[in-house]
């Protein structure tokens, strides 16, 4: 009785509501006299934000897959990446050129954040790995509070500055801006996309071409089986936090020039990262990346045609809708599997 008809019915309903939503967006946009150019701009800007979400989601999924922990401190890694880079850059400790200075600062920031992730895992996650999920969540919240508090003590509440990457190739201190078809694209956006692409390629290579990466994937798929095959869950958990921290730091660094980093930037970014991860189904890294991009575009377009203050509301409405209708994520197919 139920199976065939209800699935069909659901498909029709979702297709119809999707069409309705698109119609609604164009109608709202029409009231503001939006043309293709405006939509293009919204999509491009959304993709930029979405890329950052994708990187954060990547870290969350990496940790969740291997340890089952939802890491509320992920946003703190992002903040650390940006703040440490800005701080080191301002010290101008390399006298050669601002470009080299920035690269060195960024590398040191990534190393530092990775170390923080590793210390966090060893100190407060690994010792209580068998605790209830809620306990682990609260612990990661505690870590977030501590890191953010230390950041406030060290850097104060003012914003720091990371220069746009492009300024090192030109004389001007302002970011280069391209205008294809009247759409404004900052050079920094290109840097964000390029960096993300490199990160993805490196991670792909690591996970699929190295022994460590393969072991890591195996333990993400089945922790017990992996342990039986001699893969130490201990090392994998550590590796997961290291990767997540490094990727989070990179997200903060590339985002830095377009936002002016502050000590409290991590909370909201971390939450958006969750949404992206959930939209992707929480267990798949590629799906998390697509989830992040999609989230960035949808929230930006929706906010663009309505009210910018409502931007976050769209993100979390998407979260709730995805959880209700596709809790397995938007890319995975539904499967009834044996339980009990």
């Amino acid at each position, binding site marked *: 009785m139920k199976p065939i008809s209800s699935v069909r019915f659901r498909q029709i309903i979702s297709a119809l509501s999707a069409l309705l939503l698109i119609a609604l967006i164009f109608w709202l946009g029409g009231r503001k006299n939006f043309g293709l150019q405006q939509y293009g701009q919204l999509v491009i800007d959304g993709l930029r934000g979405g890329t950052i979400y994708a990187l954060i989601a990547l870290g969350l999924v990496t940790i969740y897959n291997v340890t089952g922990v939802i890491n509320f401190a992920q946003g703190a890694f992002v903040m650390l990446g940006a703040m440490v880079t800005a701080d080191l850059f301002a010290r101008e400790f390399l006298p050669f050129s601002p470009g080299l200075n920035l690269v060195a600062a960024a590398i040191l920031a990534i190393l530092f954040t990775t170390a923080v992730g590793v210390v966090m895992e060893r100190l407060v996650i690994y010792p209580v790995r068998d605790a209830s999920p*809620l306990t682990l969540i609260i612990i990661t919240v*505690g870590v977030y509070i501590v890191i953010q508090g230390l950041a406030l003590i060290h850097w104060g509440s003012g914003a720091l500055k990371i220069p746009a990457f492009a300024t090192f190739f030109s004389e001007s201190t302002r970011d280069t801006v391209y205008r294809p078809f009247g759409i404004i694209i900052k050079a920094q956006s290109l840097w964000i996309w390029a960096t993300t692409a490199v990160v993805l390629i490196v991670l792909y290579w690591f996970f699929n071409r190295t022994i460590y990466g393969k072991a890591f994937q195996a333990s993400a798929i089945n922790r017990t089986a992996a342990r039986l095959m001699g893969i130490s869950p201990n090392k994998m958990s550590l590796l997961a936090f290291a990767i997540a921290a490094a990727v989070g730091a990179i997200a903060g660094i590339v985002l830095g020039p377009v936002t002016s980093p502050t000590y409290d930037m991590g909370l909201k970014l971390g*939450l958006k990262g969750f949404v992206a991860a959930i939209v992707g189904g929480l267990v798949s890294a590629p799906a998390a990346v697509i989830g992040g991009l999609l989230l960035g575009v949808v929230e930006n377009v929706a906010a663009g045609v309505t009210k910018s203050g409502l931007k976050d509301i769209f993100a979390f409405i998407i979260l709730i809708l995805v*959880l209700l209708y596709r809790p397995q994520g938007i890319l995975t197919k539904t499967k009834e599997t044996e339980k009990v």
Partner: protein
Amino acid sequence: MNRNLIGIILLTLFILFTGWYEITQPEGFSSLTGGIVTFDAMVRIGILTIVVVGLNLLMGYTGQASLGQAAFYGLGAYFSAILTARAGVLGIPETIAKAWWWPWLLIPAGMALTGLFAYLVGRPILRLKGHYLAMATLGLGIVVVILFRENFGISANVLSLTGGSDGIPGIPRLRIGDYELWPVTRYFFLVWGAAILSIILALNIVNSRVGRALRAIHSSDLAAEVIGVDTAIFKTRVFVLSAMMGSLAGSLYAHFQAAVSPPTFDFVASLELVIMAAMGGMTSVWGAPFGVALLLIIRELLRARMHRLFEGAGGEFEVVAFGLILILLMIFAPDGVIKGFRSLITRVRPAAAKS
């Protein structure tokens, strides 16, 4: 005699003593605690106890996570605030809006409306389990607070209901006829009356057919279902109940603070509620007042003592210390301080007996 009854009597006596001391002694209640726990803080503990009792029923007993409970607290608060302080804007006749019974009427009305809202969103959301439910409630909480901040998406020029980021000031005090429940010494008894009542009702529920069904759901959703418990209905009802308790506390908060603004009900506030519940011990109704008190006391202690430990330490040091204490508590007493303390004693005792 029943242990819970003794607990209720002791708590009531303590509250009566606190109120009496504050009223009659010139130095006030806070002097008894070396200035750590002010009388205002006692009122806050009472208000939040109501929310956390509801959260304990939902999370501790039924095992359904909520990271958005502050939203219900906020709905109650904003409902009372808007319909009193903004009554003129809404065109409510002054004879009603200024009547002493009007805010009292709003409290149960707000609870009913919040309950209805919780029912409507709870039905679908509570199908989710574990992390997914936690994330959905988190999203829900954030959406509600953005609605407060953004005046429900209505242009403020058309109709300003929530006052945006500034919130709503000028919420009247409660009174009965001409007898105002203010100064705070009077309001204190109202708040704690409601808190103790919530504790009693929750204790009754826990030790009944309903409470057993809820605990059964926590233990095994499936086993409860095949023994005949309609798990979907029980989950929804306890969700609604916890939301209504949140709303009640919210209304009490609005009339206490005389102003509401979004940050009181945001995601961080929701997290704090969960932390309070976890600190006190979620699987005990009594954990609620202890957890709330503990969190506020740790805060106040840090605020009062931190600068003595470190020269020139400011508010940011308190935050760090708070985070560290939170982590340590969760590592060493994950079931709450009461149980943590108890297990510590049982661990120490046999050792002492041997030696």
